[in-house]
């Protein structure tokens, strides 16, 4: 259709920023939550991402596969915020109480004790390890897809995934999985 319109010199009406982003908001928020572990930090991360994406509207409209591109942007933003957090010492707020550092505490609003345990264990991971677990093990992205999203070689991803899983397994109480339950 766009080719036909352009042939007649008619421009297709551009999708608005909201129209492009809205369908992905919930998914982005969920991944942001899995990265950061709290609702507040997830919202901050997503808001930062939106600010960035708003400046990239021309590029955004040219992207064919928006979802992986958004995941890539979110990942970069997460790494950036994590690095900023690492560079800054704990800041004291106006009540002289230590402000809890980002990405260290899971959200107490979670009802599920098992999920709390997983988020708590994920706090032991580095940003890269946390990202690879989030995207691969929780969201089902393949390693080649992650290689694109995270700009990381496959070998490094495999190694990071192995180490991250090993760390998590140490901190999560796992019930033995009944092999017979599975369908052969």
């Amino acid at each position, binding site marked *: 259709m766009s080719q036909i319109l352009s042939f007649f010199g008619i421009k297709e009406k551009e999708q608005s920023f909201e129209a492009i982003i809205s369908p992905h908001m919930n998914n982005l928020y969920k991944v942001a939550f899995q990265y950061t572990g709290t609702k507040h930090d997830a919202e901050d991360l997503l808001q930062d991402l939106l600010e960035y994406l708003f*400046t990239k509207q021309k590029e955004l409209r040219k992207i064919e596969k928006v979802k992986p591109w958004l995941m890539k942007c979110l990942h970069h933003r997460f790494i950036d915020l994590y690095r*900023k957090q690492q560079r800054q010492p704990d800041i004291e707020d106006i009540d002289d109480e230590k402000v809890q550092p980002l990405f260290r505490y899971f959200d107490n609003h979670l009802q599920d004790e098992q999920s709390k345990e997983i988020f708590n264990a994920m706090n032991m991971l580095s940003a890269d390890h946390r990202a690879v677990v989030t995207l691969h093990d929780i969201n089902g992205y393949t390693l080649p897809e992650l290689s694109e999203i995270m700009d990381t070689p496959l070998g490094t991803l495999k190694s990071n995934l192995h180490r991250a899983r090993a760390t998590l397994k140490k901190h999560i109480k796992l019930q033995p999985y009944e092999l017979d339950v599975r369908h052969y």
Partner: protein
Amino acid sequence: MNCELVNKNIDELTIVDLNQPIESNLKTHVDSCESCQHALQQQLAYLHRVSTIETPELSAQSAQAMLNKVTHKNTTHENHNSGFLQGFIAASVLAVSIFGAWNVFTQSPEISPLYAIENTQQEFLTTEVTLVINVPEDMYDADLNISLPQHIALEGYDDIQELTWPVDLKAGVNTLSLPIRVNKHLSNGKPLSIMAKLYHYAEEREFEIKVDIDKIQSLQDESALITTGTNVAYSTTKQAPLNNLTVNT
């Protein structure tokens, strides 16, 4: 199939494999090897746990509010250039680009005779440099980090050796300048380096700015002899830049 191969296979299992039959040769080995059976059970239990993790949903109202915030903010501030940087460093400058896409080069110095006369007899050399960064597109929310060597201080901030501040780069040329003070006696003419890092999302650019005390001193001495005919750039300050450092991205 030996244990090593089984472990490799187990490691490559994903949540998709939770509902798939195990490869027959893997199952044959696992049935006869207790440690591999345990490893497989652990892996499947782990995958099952993380795949059922509770993650909150973003309500439609919250999503809309977040979108409204960014679109409204950027519409009202569309033409507002928050101004890049308030300052930077000094002296005889040589910068090295670490990353390929960033080209750094220096321009010939311009000297203010007035300023040089004022400072030639002092213990400290005070000067100013202008850093020019060319970026092809807007780079919002970048961070600039400056690390100063022991004998260089920011004018008015003697105790600060390192500082980081957020910057918004607009597409095109962004300039910044910042006065520094060099203790010429303590430095003993040794070359000093100021390290600058620019962070933007997952990217990081680092460049080194070499400060040649002798060169600054000699330039200022020469300029002290000139009374007329010198172009003084940046006439809003007495301390004209000795060098411009330009960075292209």
